[in-house]
């Protein structure tokens, strides 16, 4: 993990309407990390941000996004009117990302910082709800309880999965996919109050029943927070694992054995595929082997421990069969891929419509990829965030001074990036290589221009 203390200078949330009078400035600060910063220094930081936000409203109708000083970068996010989240990172102004003594000081992309704020807010909203619905007197403690552990656990670094936030889908052959579908349908018919909202294998998504935006939030919660902890437990547990073959509820974290455990179920605000607005649900998560499924239950339902026991007995054996068959298929896939991926070039594929994301290097949060140079990532981040210049169909090839070639293609909402290191290649060679990789890796996905 990353040395948070050295990178994140501070993270705070404020709302100027909370202490409108002079002398009440501290009330405006809903949350401040690190909390050992003196109140005066906190007031100073927040005051500066308030002034900056106000200054920009004179010139632009868009909310303020960033403030850069000589030594720090402030990224702003206004998720709800007047509520501002600010992340401050120590980044010197426009300096070379120099490699000193083999250690690269990677510069964090503004987009990565912004995405961090957005996902922090979305997870907060999923579990606790929008800021405006929280009573004033509770908001300070709610923020404290949620954001302190959140920010401490966050990894802020430039790596592929941070630069483009997507969902890693698991492609299955028809029969296996139907098995999953049948299982979900059967389950929902037998237990009508349980609605399956996602089916994840390892960190790959197979089935989703949420609106796309919420899906990314839940997926990130599973893959970045819940599952890594779970996997760690399983590894440490060793012997227990065998006993748990038939699955168990992993949220709440101690499982569901008694009626009291039901009180510990998390409530979440989500929008399901067929919902027209965000509603509150109980979130139930169940795991067998490497398969994880999430359910929602309407909050007005009377929870009954017998129902959960019956559900456990129903899912356990079925899911473990399905999980093993998926596992077999994955092994097969991995073998085929290994043959295909003999090329040393790296690629990233992303589809903005379903957030599908695929890359040549593993993106599992457990094995963060450091294989790509920060400069190269930063160029990719630049292409990714500047959608306009490629338009619906376009292609860009960039050569860096240290002989990296970065190629980006965009076709409607799909993007494909390739990184090649080759000193002697010319533009045409690179274009041909990109075309070849596109055909190999993205069979059946059409990119124009060819």
């Amino acid at each position: 993990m990353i040395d948070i203390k050295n990178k994140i200078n501070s993270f705070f949330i404020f709302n100027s309407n909370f202490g409108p009078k002079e002398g009440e400035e501290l009330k405006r600060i809903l949350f401040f990390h690190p909390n050992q910063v003196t109140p005066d220094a906190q007031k100073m930081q927040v005051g500066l941000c308030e002034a900056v936000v106000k200054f920009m409203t004179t010139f632009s109708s868009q909310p303020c996004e960033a403030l850069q000083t000589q030594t720090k970068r402030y990224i702003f996010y206004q998720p709800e009117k007047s509520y501002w989240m600010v992340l401050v990172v120590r980044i010197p102004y426009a300096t070379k990302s120099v490699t000193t003594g083999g250690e690269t000081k990677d510069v964090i992309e503004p987009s990565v910082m912004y995405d961090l704020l957005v996902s922090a807010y979305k997870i907060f909203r999923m579990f606790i709800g929008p800021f405006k619905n929280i009573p004033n007197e509770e908001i300070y403690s709610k923020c404290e309880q949620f954001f302190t552990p959140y920010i401490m656990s966050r990894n802020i670094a430039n790596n592929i999965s941070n630069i483009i936030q997507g969902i890693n889908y698991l492609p299955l052959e028809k029969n296996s996919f139907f098995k999953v579908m049948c299982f979900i349908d059967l389950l929902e018919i037998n237990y009508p109050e349980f609605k399956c909202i996602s089916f994840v294998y390892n960190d790959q998504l197979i089935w989703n029943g949420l609106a796309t935006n919420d899906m990314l939030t839940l997926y990130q919660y599973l893959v970045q927070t819940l599952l890594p902890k779970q996997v760690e437990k399983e590894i440490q547990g060793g012997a227990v694992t065998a006993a748990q073959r038939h699955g168990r509820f992993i949220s709440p974290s101690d499982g569901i054995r008694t009626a009291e455990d039901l009180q510990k179920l998390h409530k979440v605000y989500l929008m399901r595929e067929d919902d027209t607005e965000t509603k509150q649900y109980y979130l139930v998560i169940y795991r067998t082997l490497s398969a994880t499924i999430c359910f929602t239950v309407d909050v007005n339902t009377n929870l009954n421990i017998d129902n959960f026991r019956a559900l456990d007995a129903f899912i356990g054996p079925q899911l473990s069969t399905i999980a093993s068959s998926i596992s077999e298929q994955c092994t097969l896939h991995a073998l085929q891929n290994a043959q295909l991926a003999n090329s040393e070039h790296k690629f990233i594929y992303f589809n903005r419509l379903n957030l599908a994301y695929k890359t040549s290097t593993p993106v599992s949060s457990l094995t963060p990829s450091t294989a790509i140079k920060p400069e190269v990532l930063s160029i990719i981040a630049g292409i990714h965030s500047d959608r306009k210049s490629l338009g619906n169909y376009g292609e860009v090839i960039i050569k860096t001074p240290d002989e990296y070639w970065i190629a980006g293609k965009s076709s409607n909402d799909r993007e494909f990036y390739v990184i090649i290191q080759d000193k002697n290649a010319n533009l045409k060679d690179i274009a041909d290589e990109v075309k070849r990789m596109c055909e190999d890796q993205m069979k059946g996905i059409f990119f124009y221009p060819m």
Partner: protein
Amino acid sequence: MASTSKDHVAENEEALNEKVATDLEPGACLESILNPTDSFEEFASEISTSLEDRKTSLTIKSSTISEIQNEIGDSSKESSLRETKSSDNLQAKNESMSASASNSNLLEENEEESDEKDDYLQSPELVNKEKHVFILSSAGKPIYSRYGNEDKLAGLCGVIQALVSVVEEPNQDILRSINTKDCKAVFLVKGPLILVTVSKSNESETQLVLQLTYAFNQIVSVLTLTQLNRIFEQRRNYDLRRLLSGAERLIDHLFIFMEKDPAFLLGAVRCLPLPEKARENITQAITSTCNKIRDLVFAIMIAGNQLITLVRMKKYTLHPSDIHLLFNLVRSSESFKTAESWTPICLPKFDATGFLHGHVSYISEDCQACLLLLTVQRDAFFPLSQAKHTIAEKLRRSNCLVAINDALNRNKELPTTNPLKHIGIPEIRHFMYKCKSTAQLFTSDPISLDRLQDYRLRHKEGGDITVKKIEKLSDIDYVRNYRQFCNQIHCISTPAKLIFRSNSHDTVLAWVTNGFELYVTFDPLMEKDHAIRAVDRLLHWIKKEEQRIFIMNAPTF
């Protein structure tokens, strides 16, 4: 040219390979009249400064002008005389106004005017502008606003000053920029001035900082750095507008010029394309006339923002940005057209501490070339006027005026008038080339003076953001499109050597080598190998015409 023999193709294929390309550097020559230091390098040093460095960076180093004066055996009395004289002036001015100056507390002022300020900023004079520029003193007194009346902007200036000092004071940090999705505010504190631009254009932060630096240099060019610093040392609350009357117009024009002319983007100077012989004759006419005038530092002939020739004192070269300021001065001053003028000019890159004295005049009624003779001598008007008439006469006799006029009127028979037609590659829509070693540039469609003028007329109400459908792209539109490529190529953290971008509008190739920078716009969805071949032919064409397009020598007196 249409031959596609195997060898030729092979050579082309490698054209985008650095090693081969270094042989072909159209326009390169051993000695340059211009100092090719990149403005980007300068930016790098500007931005890496800490607060401490910044305070010392503007203290005055040795003066080039006094060095020259010493060298030519001139009395050093002269310079000290000049110094005292100018400070006397200032003293007098200071005293005359100190009575009227209000010492009211800045904060109080802000409170009072904050309501009024909000209203004024929403007035049609100020709202919906593509790029605002505000210059204020470090005490928060307004000096210049691109739009509207800076008197009414005292409130805003107070806010800017407060923002800058809040970042500086407790943390020893420097405020650099603020962004929203559609708008950038860039701050530059230089000496006693705070310069701010709020822009909705597609220019990058670096490019905006450079523009602010230019604006600062424009002020220095009117006052000298010595005087600017001294004014604010003596009175922190001084209203600089008293000394800058007339310079507002220069800054106004400078920003229009910077937004339109790629010369600023590339940190290079455009030369008026002339037959080699004609340029030689012009240079010859100047050197033969002026070699007896001892204190002459530079003789510069320009026309329509293009350099015709530059003759210099040995050892000294000019920085492109100083030449840009001279272009701007000449272009902005109608009075030079009617009479010979004698004017003090400070060239900030050459010597920010003192004035050179310039004899400025147009060559003749029938030729729009302007001759600047810059000297360190305060009272050389008459000998220089004499020299100018001799030069004009020589040029007329050697038919050089005709050559200049042909180039200025873009005579159809010249290959440089419509280079794309002459090169004959239909897929190329536009190109822009900079020779790095000489800091000179050439584009396929030079913006003529009247087009710039015309632009200014069209934008008389001033820089409003308008959405209009563009039927035919002009040079200005292509250059605007190149901005982000330029920025990526010169990006400090992640520079690029080559960018090839193709979309449904066009295909752009940006390529930088040790010797040159090249930006080409092709038709959309251009094949890479076609693009490579086209670029190769383009470079060969520039090589063939380099004597005409560029100034390939560095004459001295």
